[in-house]
C-alpha cells in the first residue's frame, strides 16, 4: 500500500465520524469514539505494510518524503497518541458534556461530544503529514492543520473560563509564532531559491552562502519552533494552556504536538548544520536555548501545586533535554557518535509512553476526585492501589530512574553532551535531572503517605473505577516502560 494512503484513510475516518455524528441517530455517542479507535488501530497495523515508491520523481514527492523509515515512526507516535487520547476523551465525556451541552430542550443530551472525538483524528492526520513533509509548503500546511485543530480543542469547554482563557492565549501566541515561521521561510527561500529541504541543504552547504541572512532566517524559524515545542523563553503559554485545556487535549498537546514539533525541528535544522559556516553558531544558540529551557522548566516545576501545571513545566523540562541533544549535534568530522535524530526520536518514543500513562491516570482520577491539585490526590494509594502504582512507575520514568524508559533517553542525551564537550549544558542538565527527583516524587507524598485520618472530613473512602480500555492501555504502557527500560532496542529497531 502506498505510504500516503495512511493520511487519506485517517482523514476519511475523521469525516466518517463526523457523518455518523450528524446523520446516524445514536443514543450513546461513545460509539463514535469506538469507531475512531478501531479505525486508528487498523491504520497502526497498516504502518507495517507500507510500500515505498520506486522512484521519487513525481511532483507529489516534492512535498512528501519518500523512503523515510523515521517518518513512519513519527506517524506511529501520532496514531498511538490519538488512540489513547480518544480513550481518555471517553472517560472525560461527563465533564465535556457538563460544560458544553445546550440546556435548551430538544438538543441531544450529549450534543457536542461527537466533534470532541472527531477533531483529534483530523489533528492526527496533520501530525502524520508533518512527519513526511520535506518541503517548506507542506511543513507549513501540515503544521497549521494541527495547530488550528488544537485552537478548537483547547477552547472546547466553552462554559469553562479557564478553557476559554487558555484557548485565547494559545490562539494569539500561536498566530504570532506562525508569523515568525512564515517570515523565516520567506528569507530561507530568498537565500536559497528553493522550497525543498534537500535543495535548501545543498545551497546552505555552499561556503559562499550569505551567512548573515541565513542566520536571520534561522533565528526566525527558531522562535517559531521553540514556541511549538515549548522551548524557553517562548514557553510561557504552556502552563496556562496545559492547565486550562481539557485533560485529554493536554495529553495530546504534550505528546503529539511536541513530537511533531521536534521532527520539523530536526528536518529544518539539518540543512543549517550541514553548513560549515553556520553549524557552530547555530549549535551555540541552540545550547543557550536548551540551557534556559532546562533551568526554567525544572526549577519552575518544583513549587507547583496543581498537577497539570506541574506536568506542563515537566514538558518544558523535557523539551530542554531534547534541545540539549540537538545542541550537541556532532560536527561532520565526528565518526561513530550518536546522531541527534536517533536520540531525539528515542527520547520522544520513551516520552510518549510515560506521559500518556500519567495523563491516563489523571483523567481517570478526575472522574472521582474533584480537583487537579496535588493535595487532592490524598489517599489515592488506598482508594486505588492500581492507579497509585501506575502513577509511581510513570513518575519514576519521567524522573529518569534506571530500568525505566526515561533513563535511557537522558543517558543518551548526557552521553552526547559529554562526547561534544558541552560541559556547561551537561551540568545544567544534571541539576535539572536532580530537581526532577524532587518534583516528580512529590506526588507520592499525598498518594502514599497521607492517611485517611489526616483528612478530617470523615468522608467515606470509595474505590476509584477504572474503565476497561484505560486499564488495558495503562498496563500496556507500564509493561512497555519497563521493557524498554531494560532493552532500549525495542524502540530503536522501530526506526532504524
Amino acid at each position, binding site marked *: 500500500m502506498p505510504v500516503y494512503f495512511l493520511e487519506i484513510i485517517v482523514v476519511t475516518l475523521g469525516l466518517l465520524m463526523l457523518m455518523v455524528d450528524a446523520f446516524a441517530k445514536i443514543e450513546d455517542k461513545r460509539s463514535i469514539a469506538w469507531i475512531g479507535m478501531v479505525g486508528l488501530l487498523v491504520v497502526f497495523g497498516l504502518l507495517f505494510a507500507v510500500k515505498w515508491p520506486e522512484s521519487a520523481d513525481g511532483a507529489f514527492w516534492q512535498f512528501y518524503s519518500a523512503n523515510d523509515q523515521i517518518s513512519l515512526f513519527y506517524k506511529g507516535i501520532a496514531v498511538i497518541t490519538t488512540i489513547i487520547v480518544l480513550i481518555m476523551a471517553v472517560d472525560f465525556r461527563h465533564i465535556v458534556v457538563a460544560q458544553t451541552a445546550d440546556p435548551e430542550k430538544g438538543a441531544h443530551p450529549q450534543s457536542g461530544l461527537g466533534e470532541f472525538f472527531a477533531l483529534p483524528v483530523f489533528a492526527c492526520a496533520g501530525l502524520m503529514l508533518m512527519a513526511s513533509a520535506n518541503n517548506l509548503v507542506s511543513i507549513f500546511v501540515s503544521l497549521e492543520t494541527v495547530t488550528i485543530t488544537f485552537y478548537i480543542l483547547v477552547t472546547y469547554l466553552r462554559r469553562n473560563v479557564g478553557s476559554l482563557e487558555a484557548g485565547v492565549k494559545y490562539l494569539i501566541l500561536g498566530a504570532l509564532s506562525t508569523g515568525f515561521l512564515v517570515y523565516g521561510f520567506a528569507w530561507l527561500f530568498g537565500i536559497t531559491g528553493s522550497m525543498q529541504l534537500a535543495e535548501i541543504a545543498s545551497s546552505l552547504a555552499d561556503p559562499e552562502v550569505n551567512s548573515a541572512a541565513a542566520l536571520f532566517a534561522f533565528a526566525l524559524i527558531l522562535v517559531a519552533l521553540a514556541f511549538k515545542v515549548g522551548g524557553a523563553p517562548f514557553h510561557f503559554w504552556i502552563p496556562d494552556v496545559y492547565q486550562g485545556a481539557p485533560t485529554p487535549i493536554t495529553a495530546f498537546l504534550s505528546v503529539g504536538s511536541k513530537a511533531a514539533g521536534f521532527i520539523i525541528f530536526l528536518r529544518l535544522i539539518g540543512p543549517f548544520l550541514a553548513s560549515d559556516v553556520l553549524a557552530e553558531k547555530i549549535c551555540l544558540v541552540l545550547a543557550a536555548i536548551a540551557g534556559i529551557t532546562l533551568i526554567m522548566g525544572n526549577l519552575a516545576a518544583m513549587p507547583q501545586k496543581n498537577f497539570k501545571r506541574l506536568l506542563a513545566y515537566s514538558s518544558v523540562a523535557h523539551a530542554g533535554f531534547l534541545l540539549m541533544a540537538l545542541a550537541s549535534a556532532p560536527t561532520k568530522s565526528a565518526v*561513530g*557518535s*550518536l*546522531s541527534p535524530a*536517533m536520540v531525539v526520536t528515542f527520547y520522544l518514543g520513551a516520552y510518549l509512553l510515560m506521559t500518556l500513562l500519567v495523563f491516563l491516570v489523571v483523567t481517570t482520577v478526575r472522574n472521582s476526585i474533584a480537583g487537579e491539585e496535588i493535595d487532592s490526590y490524598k489517599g489515592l*494509594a*488506598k482508594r486505588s*492501589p492500581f492507579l497509585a*502504582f501506575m502513577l*509511581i512507575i510513570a513518575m*519514576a520514568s519521567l524522573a529518569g*530512574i*534506571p*530500568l525505566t524508559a526515561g*533513563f535511557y533517553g537522558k*543517558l*543518551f542525551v*548526557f*552521553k552526547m553532551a*559529554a*562526547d561534544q564537550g558541552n560541559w556547561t549544558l*551537561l551540568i545544567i542538565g*544534571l541539576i535539572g*535531572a*536532580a530537581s526532577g*527527583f*524532587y518534583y516528580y*516524587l512529590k506526588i*507520592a*507524598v499525598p498518594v*502514599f*503517605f497521607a*492517611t485517611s485520618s489526616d483528612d478530617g472530613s470523615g468522608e467515606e473512602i470509595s474505590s476509584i473505577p477504572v474503565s476497561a480500555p484505560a486499564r488495558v492501555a495503562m498496563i500496556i504502557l507500564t509493561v512497555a516502560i519497563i521493557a524498554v527500560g*531494560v*532493552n*532500549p*532496542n525495542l524502540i*530503536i529497531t522501530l526506526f532504524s
Partner: protein
Amino acid sequence: MSILEIIVFLPLLAALAIGLGAPARFIALSASVLVLIMSLVSAIQFSTSIEGTMQMVSTRPLLEMDGFPSLSLSFGLDGISLVMLLLSAIVMLAAVLVSPKEEELERNPRLYYLSLLLIGGGALGAFCSTDLFFLYAFHELALIPTFLMIGIFGAGSDRLKTAWTITIYLGVGSLILLVGLILAVSGLGGSTFNIEELTALASESPMASQMQAWVFLLLLVGFGILVSLFPFHSWAAPAYAAAPTPVAMLHAGVLKKFGLYGIIRVALPFAPSGAEALLNVILFLLLGNIIYIGLVTIAQKSLDRMLGYSSVMHMGYIFLGLAAGNELGLSGAVLLMFGHGISIALLFAMSGWLREKYGTLDFDKLGGIGKQVPKLALIFGFAAFASAGLPGFANFAAEIEVFIGAFAGAEDGFGWIQWATIISLWGVVISAVYMLRAYRSIFMGPIPKKVEAPGDVGWNTRLPLLILLAALMAVGFVPEILNQYIRPAVMVILTAVG
C-alpha cells in the same frame, strides 16, 4: 537461565507476584530463602583454583549501536562479588524475617514487602552484574522503595523530611556517579559497558592522568555519597533512625557496601593514577569518618542514631584498606564489608525490636532491662563486641588485615598512610567507648519505673539474630571461609591497578 539470573530476578518476580495479590510475607520469605540457598550453591560451585576471572558468566546482548557502548544484560561472579552476594542474601533473609506480619501492619502490607524485595533484589543485581550499566541501574532500584518505606512506615514525626533528604541526597549522588561513569567509559574508548573488557582496556591504554583524576574524583564523590564518606555522610544516621527496621538493615548492611564495591570494581581499576593523585585526600576524609564521626557517635543520646553514626564511622576503616592498595589491605577491606554488613544489620534488628517493645531508644529512658530480656542482652553483647572489633568475630579478622596492610611499608619510612593508620587505631578505642556505654545504659543499672517487661525475644526474632550471629562468628573464627574467595579476586584488581 543461569543460576545468577535466577538469583537476581527471583526477588523481582516475587515483588511482582505480591503486587498482583499473592500472600506477601509468605512469598517474600520463600524468595529470600531460595535466594540464600542458591547463593550458597553458587559459593560451592565457585572454583577457587581458577585465578580471578569471572565465573558463572551469562550474557544476553541488548544493544549494539554506533556511538554508544555495547550493552548486555550479563551476570558473573568473582571472589569479591561472591562475598557481597552472600552478604546480601543473608541480610535480606534476616530483614524479611524481622519484618512485622501482615496483620501487624496498619496499612499497605503488600507495599511493605514489595519494597523490601525491590531493595534486596536491586542489591543482588548490582553485585552480580558484570555490565557497568546494570551495576548502576540495579542499585538505583532501591531509591523509590526506600523513599516510600521511610515515608509510610518510618518512625518519628519528621520522617517525611528524612525521606526527602535521603532520596535527594542519593539521587544527586547517583547523578554525579553517572557522569563519572559516562566519562570513564568514553575515556576508555566508548566501545563497551562490560567491566572486564573495560578493566583490560584501562591497563592496556589508560586514560590521560588528568582525565583519570577527574574520573576518579567524580566516582569518589558519587560512590562516596552512597557510602556516606565524610563529608557526604549527613543523610545516613537520621535515615537509618527513621527507617523501618528491615530497611535500615538492608541499607546500612548491604546497599552502603555498593559504593565501596564500586570503588574497588570500577574506580580503582579504571583510574589508578587518579586514585594515586587523590590518595592524601582520601586519607584525610577517612580520618574524618573515623575520628570526627567517631566522636559524634559518642555524643549520641539514642541507640538508633548511635548505630547510624557508628556505621558511618566504620566506613573509614574500609577506605583505609582501599587506600593501602596492597593485597592484605584490600582483602581486609572486602572482609570488613562483609563483617560490618552483618554486624550492623544484627544491631539494627535488635534496636528495631527494642523500639517496638519499649517505645523508645533514648539511653536515659532505658536501663537495666538486661534482667527482663537476658537472651537479647547476650546477643546484643556479642554484636557490640563484634562491632568494636573484638577477636572471634569477622570484624576483628578484617580490621587486623586492614591495619597491617595499611601499615605495611613502614620499614621504608613513615608516609602519610602510616600516620593515618596510627591515628585510625584510636577509632577502635572510640568504638569500644560508645558500644560499651550503650550496652551499659540499656541493659545495666536500675530499671526506670515506667519501663514494663515485654518478655524476651521470641523465636521469630531470635532466628534471624542467630543466623546473623552465626555468620559473624563462623567467619570470625575461620576467616579463610571468605578469604579463599577474596584473595585471587583482589590480586586481579591489583594487577590491573599495577
